[in-house]
């Protein structure tokens, strides 16, 4: 299908179409209107509403345009008396039960049924029937409400659930007129709102903002989501300077209209009463609101004092990867040019760096040219690192699912816990974090043995012989023993990779965020290069998905101790985030400027506490008084993402706009202005006009952004490096580590989701109150191991590591590796950073979030 062209006639016009297209698709492409209700472009057509019926000459009954594929020479009529009669009758039948509560319905004004009734001019109803009165009920998630009477049984919600998210939380229940959308497995629901999004009427509504404003009273502002690195495009519905809802356009962004629970429901923090809207200075342990000039001049004076007294190396800066490119770029300019130090870092770098280093070693590049859509074309997909579903990278996980059902792709998952993707996988390796390299070498061992019948010639690639030699000892038996799986599973997975024409790898932290982290990724990338996932054409691909919206932008704008904007190496290496606190503890760093980061929550806590306590001066810029900001000397209020103009760079390299949707509180200014003013008080001029002007500066400073625009006409990416990608390719050298004895700490702990609760508050603050209804953090551990220490699901346990301890509820699981623990954080736990040690991977300067030695005790 696809390549063949057929000619068809619709309403007298002869048209060209591709074989395999449906009549409806061809009609729409050519601007011919056919009414629809159950059809949705992202879902498989089912032809149930019967509104899109068309007549095909020669066929005795009308056919539904949405389900009928074009055939060469067919003559189609879309508007005849017969069709009008059918459509009118079908609509009237739908209307019999539909309540006339339009004035109270969220969908009024954006309701597809309303539009159709208007179009067909229905003003009376022949059928008298007692209407059912089901009222409003909670749906599969408490965040969505279901109005059964309004349902038109288009089944879009169910199809979205089954086809896009594949949770099967809802299904048709009952037959005949009793048939309705029922909740069949509420536990499976992930509150992603996909069902809500596709509902053509008001049968599903959002709990947060039911009829706060009618669609025509509110405004929709397109912007970029501030949560994870997928950079979903979303529209904020704004009424009276408040966000009252979030939708997503279908034709923009990697998300193509989909969102995750955070994106769609996690916006109420924007209007949280705890938000601070005035600058403050702490005196005698008390915060005092001060005018901007005072706060900024005080900051400048204090920083100046440290620079004068101890040199610029005594100052450090941390900036959040949820700041815009423009803010980050200006902040690094401030740190480097005004203060004069490379002591700048971001947690975005902690998530990206291991991947970047691995890619650089193998390809000489800093990033890869692939887009998430390339995943769909993959026929064997390897998923390693974080649990994409649990970490709300659901859009990426759904791409993988799409490949599974569209093309029947094979799926291999490496994760100690059997998450949703692992359940759907052909091969699930329940391996301990840090054993990825062993697994990859095991695959390479088998792939090289099966030289015959497997395509790309790789002998010529540099490092091939070394790789071959290195893989020699990783026989299926050795790998199975080390991983703790069967040899058959190892062989099966290798078989899938060997048979794959276009493999794809989708990886995410905490892969790479443990001892020898970079090696794990290098090993997987070696395998990817060997089996043909890394190609110039950009199909399949090797993908890195991270937790922060501007993870990539943070590094590319130079928020890194080793890198200037555009990955240019810094002449002198500055201190990384953890090193800054180590230095602070030793009183070598005396002043810190922290923008939007909360290191007490995300970096080894005892170290951060020690460092913060020893500082002479701490200035924090944030929307809220975060844990860290509470310990600052000066607090500068920040804008929310909804109040900002600027850009984010997503994990595919899309450079996407944030549009100001809300007017900020009186007096508040964006980061760029703040940095410029502090600079000015320090005696240096940084001319900052507007985010747009800063973006122009970025284009000049960062060669990879050349050609991009602040306000592009079409979706844009920073320069890809396709085409010549493999020219410099070389297999990387990988160190593997056998399992070590671990007497006192029998478990390996990995921490997932630690970076995801910035702004929305940790588990005590719950600034995103709506999300708090569904977001649950817990410790996943093997059910048998849990039973051994006498704990059951929901019981609280104490996790102890060499550095600290915390308490949390436990979830026992059969599908969890026995010697591993997985902290799955939906909202960051305030104590989680206590578990972390100060050791860094010497290559990436990243502390360990994975493979932390731990034990568990009953509370």
């Amino acid at each position, binding site marked *: 299908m696809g390549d063949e062209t057929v000619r068809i006639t619709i309403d007298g016009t002869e048209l060209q179409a591709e074989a395999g297209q*449906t009549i409806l698709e061809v009609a729409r492409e050519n601007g011919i209107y056919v009414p629809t209700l159950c059809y949705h472009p992202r879902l498989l*057509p*089912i*032809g*149930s*509403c*019967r509104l899109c*019926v068309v007549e095909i000459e020669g066929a005795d*009954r*009308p056919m*539904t345009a949405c*389900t*009928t*594929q074009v055939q060469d020479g067919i003559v189609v009529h879309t508007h005849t008396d*017969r069709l009008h*009669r*059918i459509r009118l*009758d*079908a609509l009237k*039948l*739908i209307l*019999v*039960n539909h309540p006339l509560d339009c004035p109270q319905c969220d969908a009024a004004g954006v309701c597809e049924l309303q539009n159709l009734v208007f179009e067909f001019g229905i003003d009376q109803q*022949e*059928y008298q*029937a007692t209407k059912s009165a089901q009222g409003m009920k909670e749906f599969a998630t408490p965040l969505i409400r279901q109005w059964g009477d309004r349902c*038109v*049984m288009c*089944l879009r919600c169910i199809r979205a659930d089954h086809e896009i998210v594949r949770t099967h939380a809802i*299904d*048709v229940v*009952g*037959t*005949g*007129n*009793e*048939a*309705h959308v029922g909740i069949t497995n509420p536990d499976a629901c992930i509150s992603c709102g996909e069902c809500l999004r596709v509902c053509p009427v008001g049968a599903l509504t959002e709990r947060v903002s039911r009829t706060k404003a009618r669609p025509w009273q509110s405004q929709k502002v397109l912007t970029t989501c501030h949560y994870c690195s997928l950079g979903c495009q979303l529209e904020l519905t704004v009424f009276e300077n408040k966000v009252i809802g979030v939708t997503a356009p279908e034709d923009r962004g990697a998300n193509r209209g989909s969102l995750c629970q955070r994106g769609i429901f996690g916006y109420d923090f924007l209007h949280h009463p705890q938000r601070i809207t005035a600058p403050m200075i702490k005196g005698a342990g008390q915060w005092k609101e001060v005018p901007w000039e005072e706060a900024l001049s005080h900051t400048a004076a204090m920083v100046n004092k440290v620079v004068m007294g101890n040199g610029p190396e005594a100052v450090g800066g941390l900036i959040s990867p949820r700041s815009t490119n423009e803010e980050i770029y200006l902040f690094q300019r401030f740190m480097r040019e005004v203060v004069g130090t490379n002591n700048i870092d971001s947690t975005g770098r902690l998530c990206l760096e291991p991947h970047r280093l691995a890619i650089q070693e193998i390809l000489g590049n800093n990033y890869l040219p692939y887009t998430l859509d390339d995943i769909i074309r993959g026929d064997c997909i390897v998923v390693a690192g974080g649990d994409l579903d649990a970490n709300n990278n659901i859009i990426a996980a759904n791409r993988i699912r799409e490949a599974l059902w569209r093309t029947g792709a094979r799926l291999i998952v490496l994760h100690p816990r059997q998450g949703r993707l692992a359940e759907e996988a052909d091969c699930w390796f329940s391996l301990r974090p840090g054993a990825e390299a062993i697994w990859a070498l095991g695959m390479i061992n088998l792939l090289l043995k099966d030289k015959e019948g497997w395509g790309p010639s790789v002998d010529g690639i540099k490092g091939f012989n070394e790789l071959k030699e290195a893989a020699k000892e990783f026989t299926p038996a050795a790998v199975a023993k080390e991983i703790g799986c069967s040899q058959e599973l190892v062989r099966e997975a290798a078989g899938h990779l060997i048979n794959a024409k276009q493999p794809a790898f989708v990886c995410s932290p905490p892969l790479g965020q443990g001892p020898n982290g970079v090696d794990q990724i290098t090993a997987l990338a070696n395998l990817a290069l060997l089996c043909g996932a890394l190609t110039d054409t950009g199909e399949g691909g090797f993908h890195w998905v991270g937790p922060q919206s501007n993870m990539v932008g943070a590094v590319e704008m130079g928020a890194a101790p080793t890198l200037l904007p555009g990955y240019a190496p810094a002449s002198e290496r500055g201190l990384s985030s953890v090193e800054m606190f180590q230095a602070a503890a030793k009183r070598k760093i005396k002043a810190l400027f922290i923008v939007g980061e909360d290191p007490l929550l995300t970096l080894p806590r005892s170290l951060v506490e020690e460092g913060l306590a020893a500082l002479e001066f701490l200035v924090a810029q944030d929307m809220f008084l975060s844990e860290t900001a509470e310990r600052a000397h000066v607090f500068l209020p920040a804008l929310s993402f909804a109040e900002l103009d600027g850009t984010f760079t997503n994990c595919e390299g899309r450079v996407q706009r944030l549009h100001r949707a809300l007017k900020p509180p009186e007096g508040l200014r964006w980061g760029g202005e703040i940095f410029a003013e502090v600079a000015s008080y320090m005696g240096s001029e940084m001319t900052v006009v507007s985010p747009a002007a800063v973006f122009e500066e970025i284009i000049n400073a960062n060669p990879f952004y050349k050609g991009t625009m602040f306000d592009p006409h079409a979706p844009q990416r920073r320069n890809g490096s396709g085409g010549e990608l493999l020219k410099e390719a070389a297999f990387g050298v990988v160190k593997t580590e056998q399992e070590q004895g671990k007497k006192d700490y029998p478990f390996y702990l990995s921490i997932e989701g630690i970076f995801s609760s910035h702004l929305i508050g940790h588990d005590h603050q719950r600034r995103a109150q709506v999300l708090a209804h569904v977001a649950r953090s817990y410790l996943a551990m093997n059910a048998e191991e849990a039973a051994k220490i006498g704990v059951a699901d929901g019981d609280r346990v104490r996790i102890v590591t060499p550095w600290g301890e915390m308490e949390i509820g436990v979830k026992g699981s059969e599908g969890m590796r026995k010697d591993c623990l997985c902290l799955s954080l939906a909202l960051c736990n305030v104590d989680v950073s206590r578990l972390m040690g100060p050791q860094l991977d010497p290559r990436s300067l990243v502390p360990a979030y994975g493979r932390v030695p731990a034990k568990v005790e009953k509370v």
Partner: protein
Amino acid sequence: MHLKSPDDLEQFRTRILEKRKAQDTKKRVVLCTGTGCRGAGALDVYDAFKKALGNKSDIEFKTTCCHGFCERGPITIIEPEGIFYQRVTPETVPQIIAETVKKDQMIEELLYQDPQTEEAIPAEKDIPFYKKQNRLVFGHNRLIDPTQIEDYLAVGGYQALVKALFSMSPEEIIAEVKSSGLRGRGGGGFPAGRKWESCSQAPGDVRYVICNCDEGDPGAYMDRSLMEGNPHRVLEGMIIGAYAIGAHEGYVYVRHEYPLAVENVGIAIEQAHKMGFLGENILGSGFDFDVTISKGGGAFVAGESTALMASIEGYVAEPRAKYIHTVESGLWDKPTNLNNVETWANVPVIIEKGAEWYSKIGTEGSKGTKIFSLVGKINNTGLIEVPMGMTLREIVYDIGGGIPDGKRFKAVQTGGPSGGCIPEEMLDLPVDFDALTEAGSMMGSGGMIVMDESTCMVDVAKYFTNFLKDESCGKCTSCRDGTLRMYEILDRITKGEGKEGDIELLEEIGWTTTEASLCALGGTAANPVLSTIRYFRDEYEAHIKDKRCPAGVCPALITYTIDAEACIACGKCKKECPTKAITGEKKVPHEIVQAKCIKCGTCKEVCPVDAVKVE
């Protein structure tokens, strides 16, 4: 015994036949224990025979499944004479053995009596019910114990398979089926050969064949009786079909309400495996094929092919649009050929006797025979198999024995719940696929419900529409809401609340439901309404305009009165009336107090002199 070649099979068959030859002249008792006869107490009769004959009896006692004449069950045949005993009870068993088996004496009371001539007919073959039938597919049922594969081999079973595997190419088999003119017996009537051909030509390595035994029409049980009574015949058809199409896996989809069918086909599959008719290298031909049983939950719509495949895959049985045909992408998205039980059972005879022979039976467009379940207001209810093209009159009067109690024939409803009602003036309609569709009804899977003058056609339409509205899967607007609205209007009409314009509204919804539905259930769901309006419009009008139910069925529209002159004041009605609505003393003609009357009709039923009148 595992047969490795056609020769093995023939030797085995010869051995069976030789063994049986000696027995053929001896007395044998054959008892039908099909579901119909079981309902009438056949298992008790079985026990009685077992007890009476004892273990070491030299009289062969054999059980079979359905013979078709269920109305007369439990049925016992005494061979070799073929004496037909009807309504046998455990009490009569000793008598049968003592007199008929041992002394060759006929027991008059157990014989079938011709309702017209009142003459007793001893031999099965002379009974009018059987006489006009052509039991091409169904006939072996009475010779076979379905749990004994030897019985099937004895009647020539698996001969067609040998012919297909060893002397025909798959293409030749498909050509043969095509030219036989066999059309799908499940209802649609799609040419089976063409379906096979499309499936065999669809791209892909893996193909499936499915036998649809999800018979859902109320009152229809021909597939059940075939599956229970002659499962090997169905399997043989499937194996031949699989070989022709290139499938190596097959499914038999049976509803779980058919436990005996599930059991018998399970036994048959096991035996076929043991003997080498299923599994690897069937009869040494190199062809592999296996069959799995899949049990359905019993939804009416699950009999629709795409819904059925969804059900086998473990999903809710819901039809999907067939823009990609199941022969190209069916079960698990692989090319799949689905036929129903009766269709598969026709295959061996076509292969064995050839398409030319087969196509001589039937009409121009419909070849072969069709099994119908003849039920309702008719003397001889049961399963009948007749050549296509026989007239309704022959079926109703010659085979069915006419209408009981001297009442007048009114209509026959064919094709299951979504079939239509055919009136008296069309009794000479030859029954085949096209003629029935032309008349506003359909063949369906072969249900035939006879109605007499005491049947209200609006009530009938309401009854079937009620069934259909419940069994609609609820996916398509036109079917889900259309059937419900039609039901609501019919309900109003039967309650005397019909309005001017209701008939037109029914016609409009019926039209939309027919025109705009996705699957055959919706496409035919308006048939009961539309066909009754077409042929019995006056009855609708009487309900709506005159608030009168001519057949005297709809409670809201009738009044019961007692004809004072005819009343003999026996008090029977007064005694039976559940609401004590009847007054009158001995020798005083009774009267009905209308305010108390709930129109249950009990008085009319019990009146010995037919003095209760309905208006």
